[in-house]
């Protein structure tokens, strides 16, 4: 199998796995228990917190653990909206956010909040001027992702932070797709809240974090125990958190060389596909992108058919679009970038990772060319296939 869907999830690194094992079957205590066996688990959680805090450049007590990037996003958005409700009820986000943010914003709209969805340009970059204009006296929160999951396009979070800071507005960024892919400390982005997830950087599923800059207003959205400073009730996923920390340390250690290696492979893939297949578009090509992601639109064919065509040959990629997941609409990200519904439907996402080698790229390029050519022969839509 050639796995080229690392933006969906990544395999657990062997060193991460080994760090986790003791906490699954020997040191399985509850970190809140009042005896040494519990304290050992507590110590492991706190050590993990310190290791991640050092990597992203914050204090340990500014980092809280939860179960998923989605939960972290929910806590950031709902937690700030709730605590600042008396101050204002307007939230600003972008049109290309992950559903974890987008659907949470829609739910908050149902609860009476007002949300502005800022557009992006044709390369998928959030329009900062438009964002600045959308801010009101009652805006309490801005949430813009650091890197888009479909296109890999890096968003101008620094510029946005400069604006929100001046206005005293809380800024959240979902950095799930950038952590471990960019050589910079995430807290330097200037956001007050940052979402991270372990399984996107060779850690386990079920472990994630929210960085909360000291002094940022936030209330819990779950009720229960007093874990995580009372901001996230529930027994900590000790093994997951230990693995998360190991994964973050490993990711930031090798980030620059790995990013360079993946960029060369990704650029090779794009160059060869562009050369060999007419009617191909690289989405976000003119923007800064993380080096592992490629979003490709092929005229006159359906993305899900490309995905299955490659799956049959043992290659895992994903669509940028929809019919596959049962969603009626093609990708909201690509549509926001101005792609027609049909072009969005013909889009695939290839995302590289640690295991990717040149031979995998060569095989994938060959399989893509053959599959797209075959589907165009079947296609009833005329255009590039002519």
């Amino acid at each position, binding site marked *: *199998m*050639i*796995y080229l869907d690392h933006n969906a999830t990544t*395999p657990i*690194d*062997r*060193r991460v796995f080994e760090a986790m094992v003791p906490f699954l079957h020997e040191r399985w205590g509850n970190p809140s228990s009042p005896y040494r066996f519990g304290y050992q688990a507590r110590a492991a959680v706190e050590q993990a917190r310190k290791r991640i805090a050092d990597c992203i450049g914050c204090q340990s007590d500014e980092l809280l653990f939860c179960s998923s990037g989605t939960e972290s996003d929910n806590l950031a958005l709902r937690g700030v909206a709730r605590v600042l409700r008396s101050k204002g009820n307007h939230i600003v986000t972008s049109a290309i956010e992950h559903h974890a943010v987008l659907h949470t914003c829609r739910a908050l709209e149902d609860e009476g909040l007002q949300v502005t969805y800022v557009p992006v340009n044709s390369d998928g970059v959030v329009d900062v001027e438009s964002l600045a204009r959308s801010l009101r006296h009652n805006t309490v929160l801005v949430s813009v992702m650091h890197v888009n999951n479909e296109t890999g396009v890096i968003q101008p979070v620094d510029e946005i932070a400069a604006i929100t800071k001046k206005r005293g507005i809380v800024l959240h960024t979902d950095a799930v797709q950038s952590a471990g892919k960019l050589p910079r400390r995430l807290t330097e982005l200037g956001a007050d809240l940052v979402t991270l997830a372990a399984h996107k950087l060779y850690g386990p599923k079920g472990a994630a974090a929210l960085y909360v800059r000291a002094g940022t207003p936030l209330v819990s959205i779950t009720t229960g125990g007093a874990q995580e400073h009372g901001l996230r009730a529930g027994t900590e996923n000790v093994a997951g958190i230990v693995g998360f920390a190991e994964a973050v340390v490993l990711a930031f250690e*090798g980030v620059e060389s*790995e990013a360079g290696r993946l960029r060369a492979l990704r650029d090779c893939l794009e160059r060869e596909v562009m050369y060999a297949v007419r009617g191909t578009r690289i989405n976000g090509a003119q923007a800064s992108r993380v080096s592992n992601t490629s979003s490709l639109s092929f005229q*006159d*064919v*359906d993305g*899900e*058919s490309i995905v*299955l*065509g490659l*799956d*049959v040959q*043992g290659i895992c990629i994903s669509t940028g679009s*929809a*019919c*596959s997941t*049962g969603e*009626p609409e*093609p990708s909201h990200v690509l549509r926001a970038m101005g792609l027609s*519904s*049909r072009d969005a*439907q013909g889009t695939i996402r290839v995302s590289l990772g*640690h*295991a990717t*080698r040149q031979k*995998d790229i060569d095989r994938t390029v060959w399989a893509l060319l053959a599959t797209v050519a075959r589907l165009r*022969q*079947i*296609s*009833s*839509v005329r255009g590039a296939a002519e």
Partner: protein
Amino acid sequence: MEDESDNSNRKHEPLSGPMLFYNEVVIDHFMNPRNVNELPEAETDGFGLVGDPSCGDQMKLWIAVCDERIARIAFKSFGCPGAIATSSMLTTLAEGKSVEDARRITDDDVIEALGGIPEKKRHCSLLGVRALQAAIEDWEKRRTRT
């Protein structure tokens, strides 16, 4: 990366069984669709063009009728694997049938012949059936004209 053993070299389950979204018959009709072609106008007795606005899929279907039987049938399709496979199966069901029998083919017939398709892909199978009915209507119109 020093860990060469990652995921690429390990043995994986073969691509079959209930893990797969589509069954093997559907995959076969997707990979090797039958009757993919366009009939030239001179040989066409009926033509149907339909689209599925819910997902952007589109299908064109041609029939040649001889003695009230579908002598030849051809299709082209822009769409997901479900649309391609069901269209392909539909053409094999309709080929050689009398026009009246072909008209009675339902999406359930196509799905049954394929051994089932995922629930959320059922709507794709309507595309071929509707295209065939449009082509038969076109054939009737052309016939009354001459």
